Every structure is written in C-alpha cells, then in structure tokens.
C-alpha cells in the first residue's frame, strides 16, 4: 500500500464531520481526535514540499489553527476535511516556498545530483538526501502533486481537487515531475539495478 493511503474514506469523512461539529460546539475533547487523524499526514505532506521539519510543523500548526477557527462554519457532508486541510497546507507551503526562494534564490537552484564518482557506494542516507534535493528542484505544483499522490497516497480526483485542476492536468504534472526526478537520479536508479 502507498504511504499514507487511507482506507475506508467514507467512515473517515463521517467521523471528521462529527468531530468538527463537536469542536464547533465547544467540546474540547473532540479536538485530539482530529489531531490524531490528520496532523501526521499534513505535517508529512508539508515536509515533502518544503524539505524542512520546522517549516513543515509551522505550516501544519497554522492549518490546524485555521481549522479550529473555522470549525463553526464547517458544513457537514460537503467537502472532505482532509481535502480542505491539504488545500490549506498547499497554499501555506507554496507561500513559504516562494518567500524562501525570493530570499535565497540558490535554495531552489537545480543541484548537481549526479556527482557521485563511478564506483562510489551510495548509502541510504545519501539516497534520501538526493531525492529530497531532486524534489526541491521541481516546479512547486509538480512537487505538490507528487507529495499528494506518491507520498500521501491520495486518489487522483482528490489530489486534482486540492490543486484546483482536472485529473488530466494532474497526470501531466505527475508525469513531468517523475520524469525530471528520474533524469536527475539516474545514477541512483542504475545503482539500484546494479548497473555500472
């Protein structure tokens, strides 16, 4: 199963509506339930997009503060809470990414990811670092699309809804993003295959 893949989505949604309703009525005991359900996914998503734990936690915290503030306005049976949270986290992450890029343009510059010498042994940590670097070089919407579908396991329609695009457009973002990463990480893939 894909990381973060959610089973029984219908039950999750109903439970979310119930919990948000209780929070809106001032029942503080419902809040930890919402946190348990979604904080890990939202923080993990922001981490994939931003590549920084502190930044990701700030984004997730802000998303949950907004959820608490908006709880009284929540319409049960409407949009999925998870979709709403990921949309908020997407916007917050994108804003932060753009600000960071304006402040430090080199942070988003393409890295030389094929710089390991021939015969070098690539350790798992190096591989993870190289993947994170490769993700950072992607245009933000490609990165968000991969974070939602590959890392969070969201269905294509939900991911497209979060991004405000069609499923076809989502597939295009995903395919271009994966192709760029494959190109950048070709040495890792060769290493995985045991090729020289």
């Amino acid at each position, binding site marked *: *199963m*894909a*990381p973060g*893949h959610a089973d029984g989505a219908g039950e999750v949604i109903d439970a979310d509506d119930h919990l948000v309703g209780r*929070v809106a009525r001032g029942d*503080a005991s419902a*809040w*930890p339930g919402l*946190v348990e359900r979604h*904080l*890990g996914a939202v*923080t*993990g*998503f922001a*981490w*994939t997009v931003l590549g920084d*734990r502190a930044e*990701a*936690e*700030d984004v*997730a*915290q*802000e998303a*949950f*503060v907004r959820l*608490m*503030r908006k*709880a*009284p306005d929540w319409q049960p049976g409407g949009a999925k809470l998870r979709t709403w949270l990921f949309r908020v986290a997407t916007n*917050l992450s994108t804003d932060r990414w753009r600000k960071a890029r304006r402040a430090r343009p080199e942070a988003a510059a393409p890295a030389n990811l094929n710089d390991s010498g021939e015969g070098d042994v690539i350790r*798992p940590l190096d*591989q*993870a670092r190289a*993947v*994170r670097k490769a*993700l950072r070089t992607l245009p933000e919407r490609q990165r968000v699309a*991969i974070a939602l*579908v*590959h*890392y969070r*396991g969201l*269905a*294509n329609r939900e991911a497209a809804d979060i991004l405000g695009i069609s*499923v076809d457009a*989502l*597939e*295009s973002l*995903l*395919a271009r993003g*994966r*192709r760029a*990463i*494959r190109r950048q*990480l070709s040495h*890792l*893939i060769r290493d*995985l*295959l045991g090729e020289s």
Partner: protein
Amino acid sequence: MGENENGTELDFDRFQAILDAYGASPDRWPAEERAPASKLLARSADAKRIHAAAEHLDSVLDSAVPPPLDAAFAERIRGLPPRKPEAASAIRRSGFAALTRIAAVLLVGLVGVAIGLAIPRGSNDGGGADLATPTAPASAFEAEIPVADLPVDGFADAADADADGTLGLSLIDALATESAPFAGVEVSVADLRLE
C-alpha cells in the same frame, strides 16, 4: 489489452501513461483502471518491462519518506483549544483597544481642564472657605481616576487597573494584559508566528 470495469479496454499507451503519472503501485492507479491495468500487466511482457522501470523509480522516491511526527509537536497541537483566544488575535486587536483607552483618558483629562478653567479661581461659593486650604484638585490631571469611574464601556476592566485601583495605562501594559474581549475569536499564539 485489459478491460476496465465498464468493459472498456486499456491499451498499452494508456498503461504507460498510468505508470508515468502514478508509478508502479496499483494502490495509486485510478480506481476505475486498476483492474484492466493489472490484467494487462499480468499477460504482457512489454508491460512488465515498463512496470519494472517504474518500480525502480518508486523505490528511489520511497527512500525520502517524511520523518515520524515529533511527539512534542503533536502534543502542542493537541493542546491548542485550552489556550483559547487570549493570545494572537486579542493582542492584535488590543493595539486598537489600547489606543482607544489612551484617547479616553485624554478626553477625560481635557474635560477636567475645561471644568477647571470654567471655575473661577478663588471662588468663594462655599461661603467664606479658606482659599489657601487645598480642597479638590483643579483638574483631572491632578486626580487619580478610579477605573470604575471611566465613562467608556468595555475598555476598563480589572486587568487595566493597577494594584491601587487607579489607571496606569500604557500601550505595552495593555498589550500584555488584554484578555479576550471579543467573543468568538478562536486564535492562538501561532497566528503571531505564522503571519
């Protein structure tokens, strides 16, 4: 070719497009195309070949899964409700409230000055009172204004009063002591950090 749940066949190009976008795991494939894509994969050598390439890329991507949720951070988020509104929004709004209070104090002072000027010095309406004996202060600037006497509703509360019950307002004091005067505001300190 495989068939989807509507009986529509899935051609090789579409299978390739699915792998390009979603990778090798059927869990990520579009639900309505999962079955025909799996069928095609089961019987086509070419499909197996491109599927293997997609698997390799997935494996590389999977090496960068997010770290586990930090327990202290999760606890902080779980503890958001009890913190209630007093922090961020209240502090932002109290900037305006503090300015209004300062304006109110100045207004009271000006009224006091006006009253002081309107009363002739040395008035002996009291019928032979000793002019040299201090009686009432000439203006509100000289008086300590009891908080309860301030004529502006909603601005004066216990938090604004000094220990002796008089008004010792400063903007900084007001910012520090404001305690949620606006019902329904659900914001935490996080707002300050994040906005």
